[in-house]
């Protein structure tokens, strides 16, 4: 009898651990109080016993980067490319953890940081053209105003910041792009370049939604 309830018990504990995590997670919403940002960047609790708490723990929403040309760093390592890179995005990857994306984590019509933690950054190593508008090489913050059928993607010059405190006076360009439905559901927010005939699309995808920002180089 005692043995038969053990698996049930341990499963319940596990479920509890997961729900605790999702309660704690504020990783994709606006940061409520930056003084408690450690909450925003703390690893899941199940690792706590093997961690040393004195040193910074990995973020719940891990950072990642993507290059265009796609996989540029690996191409460079294998001497398969000798030209400089054209673009790079550095962003953090929140995950659903059972939550609904729209109108849950993200609200239609409200500015969204396109990531988590540090502001999402695009580095253009070369001038680019998007929908006929030239964007000069440089570092920018990227953010988004999502609607059900289209997203507005905004380039802003207020770099090296946290989350999103939109300062529209520093917006330099806005682009409206359509939204596509994707399957299966994507747990982690994902940004990646995909080569096109004129340059590359920056794919932004999460849950069942995907949008593509077309770059010409």
């Amino acid at each position, binding site marked *: 009898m005692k043995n038969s309830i*053990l*698996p049930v018990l*341990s*499963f319940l*504990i*596990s479920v509890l651990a*997961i729900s605790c995590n999702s309660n704690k997670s504020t990783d994709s919403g606006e*940061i409520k109080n*930056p003084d408690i*940002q450690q909450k925003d960047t703390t690893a899941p609790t*199940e*690792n706590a016993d*093997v*961690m*040393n708490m*004195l*040193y*910074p*723990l*990995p*973020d719940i929403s*891990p*950072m*990642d*980067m*993507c*290059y265009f040309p796609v996989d*540029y*760093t*690996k191409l*460079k*390592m294998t*001497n398969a490319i000798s030209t*400089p*890179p054209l673009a*790079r995005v*550095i962003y953090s*990857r929140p*995950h659903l953890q059972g939550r609904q994306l729209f109108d849950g984590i993200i609200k239609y019509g409200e500015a969204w940081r396109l990531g988590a933690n*540090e*502001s999402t950054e695009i580095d253009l190593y070369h001038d680019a053209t998007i929908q006929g508008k030239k964007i000069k090489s440089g570092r920018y913050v990227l953010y988004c105003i999502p609607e059900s059928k289209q997203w507005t993607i905004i380039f802003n010059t207020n770099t*090296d*910041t*946290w*989350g999103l*405190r939109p300062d529209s006076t520093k917006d330099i360009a806005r682009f409206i792009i359509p939204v596509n439905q*994707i399957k*299966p*559901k*994507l*747990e*982690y927010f*994902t940004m*990646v370049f995909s080569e096109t005939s004129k340059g590359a699309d920056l*794919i932004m*995808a999460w849950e069942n939604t995907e949008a593509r920002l077309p770059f010409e180089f």
Partner: protein
Amino acid sequence: MKKILFLNGLILLSLLSINAQNNTLPSVDKSPMDMSYYPSNYPVLKIQDKLTEALVARVIYSRPQKAGRTIFGGLVKYGEVWRLGANEATEIEFFRNVRMGGKKIFKGRYTLYAIPTENTWTIILNKETDTWGSFKYNSKKDVVQVSVPVQRSENVAEYLSMYFEKSTAGFNLTIIWENTKVQLPISF
């Protein structure tokens, strides 16, 4: 009980990773990327309007885990060039000119490598950016090499950690993993 909990943990972990991999798009890295700024916490201070110093430096690196392995002298061999991270090469960017190892370093992006030995590390600042690991390390592209002493800590750091700390002459890049700590002095 312990065994069942462990098994349950394994099942949960595998469920989580299935979730993360149900698409052809990139899954989440085992060694997550992170960044640190000097002044420390610059992005948070910026949104709080608490900045007292201009932006100086940023390091972007990936954080491998110890995962029960012997790191220094084991996984990371003494006397060999090490990538000081994982995945994409570790990048340091200076937003103004600084000094390191008695040399003027112009603002810009660089790749960091290290050659660890038991008691000292050589930290290498190299001009070849946007690359992967240390597989293509070319000493001809070095800007400066700085020798720093190894400090021991009693606490074991599971994840490689890199962050900046203020010093009397400027600031240090502190690197900690396992029970090894080194500090790279940078001045203005």
